């Protein structure tokens, strides 16, 4: 009889767990409340079946446990009962499917007046693009992708010149405006998922996928990559800031357009070491370094820059090297030249001019200490 008691406890325990669990949906921040409702309906229907069937089993185990001298009945079939059961089950299934498909019909038909946001997924960071004043996104192709032009925008396409490019991981959206999120990648499958938005979609290189939503809560929400895309998959940490229309417009105006990124880089205001380092910080964003290198001491896909300059790094083969100016420059120019122990050798060579390299090294240096000659 232990098994019957245990099954009963499991049923009771599961129901209790469900009522008391601290782990449930994140607070909804979009218009997709109906998805939550359908989830609840599904939970209710399946929960009912789970409890009823299991309690029936518990009762049956107790009532028909083996007792000496008592034999089983002979009842190989009962067509009427089978038909009833099929009927009830079908009703349950329809009760689940109908709301589910109704919500889905809404999901696949974005509002005509939705604004456009493009998310570019890249191993291993997010970038974003808005259509500019012209209202149309410029054409792109993988053959145009460079370190300078990670979106692969066609420089000859006039529509792309005014596209607003957001090079870092954080994007802003206006509150209460529908947005159709276009999704692109040049390298791997990704998936832009903000749990509070509920809506999401995989990103597939070679095509443009999409989903739509209306953000209904202001706040700063975390976006994660939800389709395995290599070892940096867990580090693709994005942010979506939802704010009032006015604040959004102000933020948007402060971003660069494609045309601006094409213009030769203006010399940094002032040329002291601080300005150089500040320029390096911007470059770390725009060149994509932040996808793999942190400044807070945590290792990402690549080593953290905190404490990097001046330390003695160990290579895969056990040899050691001092991380000084020469080391950094040589490594950034040719990442395959060294195999650092504890890290996969996947850093791409990132094209940059010499004074960009100066700025970047200055920035990295600012997190380290003077190298102690051995």
């Amino acid at each position, binding site marked *: 009889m232990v098994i019957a008691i245990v099954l009963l406890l499991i049923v009771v325990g599961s129901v209790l767990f469900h009522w008391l669990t601290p782990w449930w949906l994140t607070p909804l921040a979009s218009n997709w409340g109906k998805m939550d409702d359908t989830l609840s309906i599904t939970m209710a229907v399946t929960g009912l079946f789970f409890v009823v069937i299991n309690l029936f089993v518990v009762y049956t185990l107790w009532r*028909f446990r083996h007792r000496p001298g008592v034999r089983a009945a002979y009842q190989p079939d009962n067509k009427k009962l089978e038909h009833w059961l099929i009927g009830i089950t079908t009703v349950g299934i329809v009760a689940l*499917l109908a709301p589910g498909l109704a919500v889905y019909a809404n999901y*696949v038909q974005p509002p005509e007046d939705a604004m456009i946001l493009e998310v570019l997924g890249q191993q291993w960071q997010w970038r974003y693009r808005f259509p500019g004043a012209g209202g149309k996104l410029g054409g792109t192709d993988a053959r145009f992708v460079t370190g300078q032009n990670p979106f692969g925008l066609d420089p000859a396409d006039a529509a792309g010149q005014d596209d607003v490019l957001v090079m870092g991981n954080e994007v802003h959206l206006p509150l209460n405006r529908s947005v159709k999120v276009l999704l692109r990648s040049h390298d791997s499958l990704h998936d832009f998922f903000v749990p509070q938005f509920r809506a999401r979609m995989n990103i597939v290189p070679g095509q443009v996928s999409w989903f739509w939503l209306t953000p209904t809560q202001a706040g700063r929400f975390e976006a994660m990559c939800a389709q395995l895309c290599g070892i940096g998959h867990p580090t693709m940490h994005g942010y979506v800031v939802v704010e009032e229309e006015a604040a959004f417009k102000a933020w948007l105006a402060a971003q660069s357009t494609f045309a601006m990124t094409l213009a030769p880089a203006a010399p940094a205001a002032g040329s002291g070491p601080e300005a150089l380092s500040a320029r390096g910080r911007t470059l770390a964003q725009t060149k994509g370094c932040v996808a793999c290198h942190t400044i807070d001491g945590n290792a990402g896909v690549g080593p953290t820059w905190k404490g990097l300059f001046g330390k003695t790094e160990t290579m895969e083969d056990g040899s050691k090297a001092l991380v000084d100016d020469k080391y950094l420059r040589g490594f950034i120019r040719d990442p395959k030249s060294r195999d650092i122990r504890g890290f996969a050798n996947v850093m791409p060579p990132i094209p940059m001019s010499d004074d960009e390299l100066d700025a970047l090294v200055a920035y990295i240096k600012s997190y380290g200490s003077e190298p102690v000659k051995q």
Partner: protein
Amino acid sequence: MAYADTEEILHDPHTFITKYVWSQDHKVIAVQYASIAILVGLLGLALSNLMRLQIGFPGVFEFINAERYYQFVTMHGMIMVIYLLTALFLGGFGNYMIPLMVGARDMVFPYMNMLSVWVYLLSVIVLLASFFVPGGPTGSGWTLYPPAAILPGTPGHDWGIILMLVSLVIFIVATTMGGLNYVTTVLQARCEGMTLLRMPLTVWGIFVATILALLAFPALFVSGVMMLLDKTLGTSFFMPALVSMGQVTGYKGGSPLLFQHLFWFFGHPEVYIVALPAFGIVSDLISVHARKAIFGYRTMVWAIVIIGALSFVVWAHHMFVSGMNPWFGFFFATSTLIIAVPTAIKVYNWVLTLWRGDIHLSVPMLFTLAFILTFLSGGLTGLFLGNVSVDIPLSGTYFVVAHFHMVMGVAPLLVVFGAIYHWFPKVTGRMLDDRLGHFHFWVTFIGTYLIYFPMHYLGVLGMPRRYYNYENYQFIPASAHSLNVFITVVALFVGAVQLVYVFNLVWSTFRGRKADPNPWRACSLEWATPDTPPKHGNWGAKLPVVSRWAYAFNVPGAKQDFIMQNAALDAGGVEEQPKSYGASS
């Protein structure tokens, strides 16, 4: 079906090598399949423990870096689904049970049967070789999605993925050889009186699963060959124009979604290849240990056939958020929820078999009851994922991981355990130790429930799967990390206890209590062999003749509470014939 005298001589082994190594005897081949599967399954278990160590205690175990983590994830998944479950149910149980349960001397193609197990072993060796090649095994996830699987940024994107794909191709050859055997044997080698509708449901489950395997594995073959060519010869079946790690690649025009369609056209029937034999076995275990005919035998057969057929039209429910044509979602959600109906019928019928039965709580029965609970749970969560709009926020989270472990890992594995406890006396002539059996049962059942039930809620929260760590994600509360610690500890304990089970298997083979030829007093033919364990040729001088179905339990008026299939006709217990169409009831 009278059988004329011999013209061809059945294989007849004399030496140790021909009896136990290059054996053409289905029973030996079955044990070979099962042994290899269980050994590689233990490796899969160890890999899962390593994964859980990282999830529960991120960063503590330095040798589990991101690369290795994803390699463990991938190899764990592939080993468990293909090399353990498929091989064990079809090659292990299929080989052992089918000829015995249908009254044949052996499979119809014994030589090809022998070849299939050695080819299977070769596929395992090639798979394991990927641990030792430069770059290590592939870390692309068991689903092997391109483009990442063959590009830098994913571990094992050179030799690892190549060996994985080659191993799968070899496995498919082995499975096809075995599959031709199982299906042809069921169709052609049944003994006199054994009509299709008198076969035990174990045979029906494995039979339909094998047909699924024959038709579904080609899709994996196609996708595997095309990916191999993309990797080794630069074709662009699945590879669009790409910029990988800053380098423009030479690919263009290919479609990653094409791979996914092909893979899941295989992948969904694959889960039924694992589930259907489990369903069949459960029906037999319940009826024997509750001394009652399986409720609704014909409906159960139809359910198996319909589930098998429908399994080919639901595949894209694995792709609802893949970026495929959104309108497909309507069709696949509908077909997926339809398949729930015959599946639910099976659950009802198992439970109704218990109703008014004479329930013996033996170890096999305990595992069967645990199966009902866990399969019910896992199957119901499938309804969440099959309902497209509910799936959207759940896809790629731990909800999916919990669902498929419950329904593919826990439930079928409980059936494997129960089935081995049930048939061990037939295979070895000895009983498995009962106390160790109870211990193994309770730890495994309660442990796996504790692992996977709470995991669903992490998925609802939005916790993504295939994450090496969750540093800096604020929306995940500290309590979720504590739950991960709990799950890891339970998983390690449950994993360790499986070694107790392996010990029981080995020890009891040599020292177990000697068993009756039919200790559970079952009706099906495998218990009627003249020798236990059955000798080569199974039946001695004369093949059995069958007079009834396999579920003549507690037939009114019979002396004993069971009548074996091959008992004389006048012993009664013949199954009811369905009334002809149009007759009044």
